[in-house]
């Protein structure tokens, strides 16, 4: 079979969806990290999960991965309960950098091959198709020249790309990314965002937790604002507003507002607001976010 000749799926054919219904998670030590969280996401979506540290972003990921059992409510992935969805290889996960032991003796290509394990028999013997898909994934993130390196030898951005390649090789319909933009350079960030857009076009559903407020309107069509519960969820234009962000971040954000004559000497009464939690700032001009020019 010629793997390359596989027909591309129409976006809806993947049928990727995430549904949280009244989800509450309480840790064994009694901390309720998330209470009554509900939101629904459809195929072909990039959704940002935004909130301060400790607002429960990672907890939501853990619930979606079945690491923590909901104390109330439920999670459904593509209409299935979590365990059934994981058995079907529906979800790919790109971990936070702190969660990985970078001294582990594995090479770049072996990490990407781990993405194929769920498609192999129980002895995990790679077939030609598996090797081909690993090559493709490495090529797509531009890490082919580094494939024989031990993972600890890479830069922060390269490490992220390797794990992204693994999720490509896995071909999960749903891709979860926990803080993918922390500690990487702007160029890698742009490359990753470009890749996420391609995946969206192919019908994948991506949930991305981030502090990087500035780039959210750039590439996320949905936003879930979190603070121990869902404060707001929906299309970016409706949810990612100044008022909502202030609710989500309270006093944590730095907020610079320049208005009227400080800004320019004309009739334009709009003010310029800069919100930042010390990563890429979010800029409101007259109450609207400014998408970058490259937005399609």
């Amino acid at each position, binding site marked *: 079979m010629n793997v390359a000749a596989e027909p591309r799926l129409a976006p809806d054919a993947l049928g990727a969806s995430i549904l949280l219904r009244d989800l509450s998670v309480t840790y*064994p030590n009694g901390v309720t990290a998330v209470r009554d969280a509900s939101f629904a996401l459809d195929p072909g979506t990039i959704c940002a999960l935004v909130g301060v540290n400790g607002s429960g972003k990672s907890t939501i990921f853990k619930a979606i*991965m079945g*690491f923590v059992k909901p104390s109330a409510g439920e999670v459904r992935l593509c209409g299935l309960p979590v365990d059934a969805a*994981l058995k*079907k*290889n529906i979800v790919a996960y790109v971990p936070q950098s702190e969660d990985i032991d970078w001294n582990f*003796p*594995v090479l770049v290509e072996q990490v990407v091959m781990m*993405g194929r394990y769920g498609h192999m028999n129980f002895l995990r013997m790679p077939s030609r198709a598996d090797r081909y898909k690993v090559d493709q994934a490495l090529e797509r993130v531009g890490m082919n020249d580094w494939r024989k390196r031990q993972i600890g030898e890479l830069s922060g951005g390269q490490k992220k790309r390797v794990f992204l390649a*693994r999720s490509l090789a896995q071909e999960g319909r749903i891709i979860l990314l926990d803080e993918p933009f922390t500690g990487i350079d702007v160029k890698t960030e742009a490359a990753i965002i470009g890749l996420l857009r391609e995946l969206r076009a192919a019908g994948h559903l991506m949930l991305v937790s981030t502090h990087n407020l500035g780039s959210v309107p750039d590439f996320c069509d949905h936003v879930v604002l979190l603070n121990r519960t869902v404060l707001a969820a929906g299309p970016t234009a409706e949810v990612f507003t100044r008022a909502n962000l202030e609710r989500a971040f309270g006093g944590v954000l730095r907020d610079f507002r320049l208005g009227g004559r400080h800004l320019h000497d004309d009739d334009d009464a709009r003010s310029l607001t800069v919100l930042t939690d010390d990563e890429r700032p979010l800029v409101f001009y007259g109450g609207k976010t400014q998408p970058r020019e490259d937005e399609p």
Partner: protein
Amino acid sequence: MSALAAELWVPFTYGYMLKAMWVSALVGGVCAFLSAYLMLKGWSLMGDALGHSIVPGVAAAYLIGAPFAVGAFFAGILASLAMNFVKQKSRLREDAVIGLVFTALFALGVLMASIWPTSVNIQTIVLGNILAIADEDVVQVAIIAAVSLAIMAFLWKDLMVTFFDESHARSIGLDTTFLRIVFFTVLSACTVAALQTVGACLVIAMVVTPGATAYLLTDRFGWLVVISIALGTVTSFVGAYISYFLDGATGGVIVSLQTLLFLAAFWLAPRHGVLAARRRRRLTLGGAAP
């Protein structure tokens, strides 16, 4: 055949020596397999912990007249469960939990052996005595080692993914809780087997040193496992052989051999050895200063 060769061949002519050599090799190999994982997870002390935790199980087994592997095995499982439980229900760090559980069980074992003096020879448990191993013990050890090897051969990649990145392991549908339980069960069983060859005190070397040595020699997990098993098997076989000429102390000889090989790798390993690092530094310095 020259006199020397005849002399060196002597251990192979005794049934008990042959038995000691192949049992040691088998146990050394499977412990080395496990060492590849333990060392990477920072769980090296787990081997020590299990080795000591087993003592009350052995004392109890002697009291009620059960096979000593059975008592040891249940004590090992109890120790693993206790460690998992304390870790989940408290915010203590792993090393504190391990230290707490294993000293508690070891103390219990010493207490039991002193309150009810039995035929338990504590020295046998602590130092091992492969040269005098009984036939039914050989059967126990061989079964444990063979089953453990078979399980590890089937699950080694799944365990690697689980220990490397548990979230990913779950995302490809692996039952990581089950895999952990399997791993610790195998570890407990192999610790019991290793007790017989090297004793409770030196079990830790069997489940750490080969993996640590291999780690210095390769960046690929598959090779790490292969090298580790080879080191464990060969050192245990040769160690048992040499102990014939040194009159006993098999555990000491095996672990000394493993340590020698570790030191060799530590200095001479092609990429991660001390000398290689020094050479690299000299090259960079030489390149910088014309």
